[in-house]
């Protein structure tokens, strides 16, 4: 019964999505002859999209109910839960497996589209086209959920108990991570949709960019959150001592984030100078396709093992859809190429627009490199019949210098002016921050830091941090002088009056703080692995540990092996006791849970190496010293706050947009 209701909800929403496409097409077709009829069609197409969202919510609710009731007649429920699974995890198992995640994808996309149409329903000209383009993606994913990846498919037999979620996914961070990532993914469909609509209508001013600016920022915010949470999860659960391993699954979420970042920057040139119209279209199309590609990779495990490739068919459907969208959007971009040509040119390579252009150039280069490396297993398998993997070290080597350039640009670019700046004034403004940074770095050198790569990195970070802080200070000072208000109120006013710019600078600051932490861990991480019997000691830098034995116990359905390790400092003072442990689940899967002594200077991070064999009296311990790692999370926090400020709805902005829309409607005699 449950399953039937779920099926019905999903398939009816598929029908509605198809109706959206058909209705908007008819509306477009009759639009020239009969405005009133066209409007009716388009209105009902819009309503069909608005209905899709609640229908899919119902489907999700039914799935959650089935999960809570242990309805093992549904195959998906059998796969992701057991009778003993805690209620909270039962609910979140909604996206714990393949079919459920795709259902979540659908409902989030439907939500974004519905919200966009509700708010932009007065956008008469772009609307029918946007409805049409938006429905393509929805139809494709609803097709997947209706047929090949049906979450309500019946089990072959009704099992007494289910399999349960993979233990790695039972972590709170991992429960939050997929919805964030998918919110980011589906959010990017909105700007793409409007970009193609702009191409189709030929309304190629920056209207579509203004309409979708906040949507893009929201999508970007969620994608960033997804990435940060994913990194923290890896650090807390995977037990390899790091937060980013350049794993294909991480990369495919990172690449659209990069192109999205480039897009967020380059649209500002179009708004100010009317340049790079085509480039912006290309960037958003690329971001959209990379989002679909990312979903494909994660959902089909394509890059995990090339040999799993033949086992499932949905990747061909994915490829088909992606090629379709690629051809469709390329066609329209080419069709409008002459209208997208820029009437202006770069007057100087020292201008603000040039700085944005450099930023785009670097980010896109990084994206391309990461894309090639990520797909290298596929490429090599295809061309030479052998899989070559690309390790983290190679990624760092290839992208490190580019990231460094980007950080320098982050500091210098805000000093530049539109049209043209003089080298002299740029030099004058960045001279003393450069010197201050140099003095600090020389101090570090004297203090004993000898890695010149890290020194260069620190110099860049300090330099750019000073310049970014100066942006705030100078602007606030200007306000204080002009209006005589206090410093705090002046700073607050900066954010209120120009949330986009100062939110943006706060984001820069967050990135720089993260970079500080990343340099610390990447250059100075040390690790040591030793086998210890009870009472044995081992030393890593300033820390000495003493193994006190392993305890084995059962906790619900989990067997735990937990080591007790005392941590002393150099002088022999006891600092803390750490309990790294291993959880072994019923299905035999193990999970390595590290323990750490953590502060702003460094993490002393430790895992119980369960794959080396553990007994009550002896165990293999691997210690990591991760300097400055907490700055990565702190920077992430600043970053998120900055994005929230930049994306926060601005009442003034809304009014301007509404007025503009009204003027436009009047102009076309609507």
């Amino acid at each position: 019964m449950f399953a039937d209701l779920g099926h019905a909800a999903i398939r009816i929403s598929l029908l509605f999505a198809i109706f959206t496409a058909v209705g908007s097409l008819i509306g477009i077709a009759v639009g020239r002859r009969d405005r009133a009829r066209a409007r009716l069609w388009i209105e009902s197409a819009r309503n069909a999209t608005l209905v899709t969202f609640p229908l899919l919510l119902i489907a999700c609710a039914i799935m959650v109910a089935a999960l809570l009731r242990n309805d093992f007649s549904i195959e998906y429920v059998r796969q992701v839960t057991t009778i003993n699974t805690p209620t909270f995890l039962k609910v979140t198992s909604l996206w714990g497996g393949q079919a459920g995640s795709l259902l979540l994808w659908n409902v989030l996309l439907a939500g974004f589209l519905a919200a966009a149409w509700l708010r932009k329903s007065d956008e008469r000209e772009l609307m029918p086209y946007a409805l049409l383009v938006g429905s393509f993606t929805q139809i494709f994913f609803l097709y997947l959920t209706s047929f090949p990846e049906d979450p309500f498919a019946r089990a072959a037999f009704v099992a007494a108990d289910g399999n349960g979620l993979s233990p790695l996914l039972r972590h709170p961070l991992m429960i939050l991570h997929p919805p964030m990532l998918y919110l980011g993914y589906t959010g990017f469909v909105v700007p793409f949709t409007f970009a193609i609509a702009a191409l189709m209508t030929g309304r190629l001013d920056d209207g579509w960019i203004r309409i979708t600016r906040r949507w893009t920022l929201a999508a970007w915010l969620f994608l960033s959150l997804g990435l940060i949470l994913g990194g923290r999860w890896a650090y807390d659960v995977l037990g390899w001592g790091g937060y980013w391993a350049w794993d294909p699954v991480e990369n495919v979420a990172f690449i659209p984030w990069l192109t999205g970042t480039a897009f967020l920057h380059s649209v500002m040139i179009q708004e100010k100078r009317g340049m790079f119209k085509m480039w912006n279209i290309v960037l958003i199309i690329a971001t959209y396709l990379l989002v679909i590609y990312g979903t494909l990779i994660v959902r089909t495990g394509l890059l995990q093992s090339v040999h799993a490739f033949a086992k499932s068919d949905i990747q061909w459907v994915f490829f088909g859809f992606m090629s379709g969208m690629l051809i469709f959007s390329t066609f329209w971009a080419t069709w409008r190429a002459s209208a997208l040509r820029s009437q202006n040119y770069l007057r100087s390579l020292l201008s603000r627009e040039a700085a944005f252009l450099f930023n785009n150039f670097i980010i896109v280069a990084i994206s391309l490199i990461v894309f090639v490396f990520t797909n290298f297993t596929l490429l090599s398998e295809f061309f030479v019949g052998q899989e070559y993997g690309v390790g983290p070290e190679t990624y760092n080597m290839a992208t490190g210098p580019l990231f460094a350039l980007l950080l320098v640009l982050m500091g210098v670019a805000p000093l530049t002016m539109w049209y043209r700046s003089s080298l002299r004034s740029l030099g004058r403004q960045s001279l003393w921050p450069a010197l201050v940074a140099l003095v600090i770095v020389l101090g570090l050198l004297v203090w004993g830091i000898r890695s010149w790569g890290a020194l260069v990195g620190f110099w860049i970070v300090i330099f750019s941090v000073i310049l970014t802080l100066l942006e705030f200070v100078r602007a606030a000072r200007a306000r204080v002088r002009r209006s005589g208000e206090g410093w705090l109120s002046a700073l607050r006013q900066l954010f209120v009056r120009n949330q986009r710019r100062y939110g943006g600078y706060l984001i820069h600051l967050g990135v720089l703080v993260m970079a500080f932490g990343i340099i610390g861990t990447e250059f100075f991480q040390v690790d040591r692995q030793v086998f210890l019997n009870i009472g044995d000691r081992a030393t890593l830098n300033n820390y000495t540990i003493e193994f006190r034995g392993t305890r084995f116990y059962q906790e619900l359905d989990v067997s735990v092996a937990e080591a007790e390790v005392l941590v002393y400092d150099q002088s022999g003072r006891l600092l803390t006791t750490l309990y790294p442990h291993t959880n072994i689940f019923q299905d035999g899967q193990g999970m390595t849970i590290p323990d750490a002594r953590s502060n702003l200077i460094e993490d002393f991070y430790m895992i119980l190496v369960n794959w080396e064999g553990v007994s009550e009296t002896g165990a293999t311990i691997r210690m990591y010293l991760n300097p400055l790692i907490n700055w990565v999370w702190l920077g992430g926090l600043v970053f998120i706050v900055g994005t929230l400020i930049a994306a926060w709805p601005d009442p003034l902005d809304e009014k301007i947009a509404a007025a503009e829309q009204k003027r436009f409607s009047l102009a076309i005699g609507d």
Partner: protein
Amino acid sequence: MAIKQFPSLRLWLLPLIALFLLSVGRPAAAQEGGVTDDDVNDVARQLFCPTCATTPVDVCPTQVCADWREEIRNQLAAGRTEQQILEYFSDRYGEGVLANPPASGFGLLVWIAPVVIFLAGVFVFARYLRVLRQNAAATGGDAAGTPAASEPADPYLTRLEQELDQE
């Protein structure tokens, strides 16, 4: 114990590094026959697990990787160098097991690709700027928006004030 070094700039020193790697294999089992876990991990982290794609062998819990680590330990104890051991694995299981693809054969592509992407980018970038200029010359461009020719005392503050006024 292994200290990670900043690898990025080595890319530009590639030939030198290749030479260095070829000539100086780390004398692994330096301490009298006592091969430590760290020595094993130093080699193991440069190999990928053969069954779980991009997981490095030093942190992989599968049985295959346990066997591989054992093999590495034995070879280190027998006095073989890191380079020799890596060669042993890549000869047997293919170059795909190396975490950093070799700078030869198809793996060379990994080393060339970033440089090619970068240079291609510079080329496209330069061309694009030229096209922009030509277009603008043909249509007149935004000549009106030229900033003041004479530079005021503090151009930054002037701009800032202008922008603050605009809002």
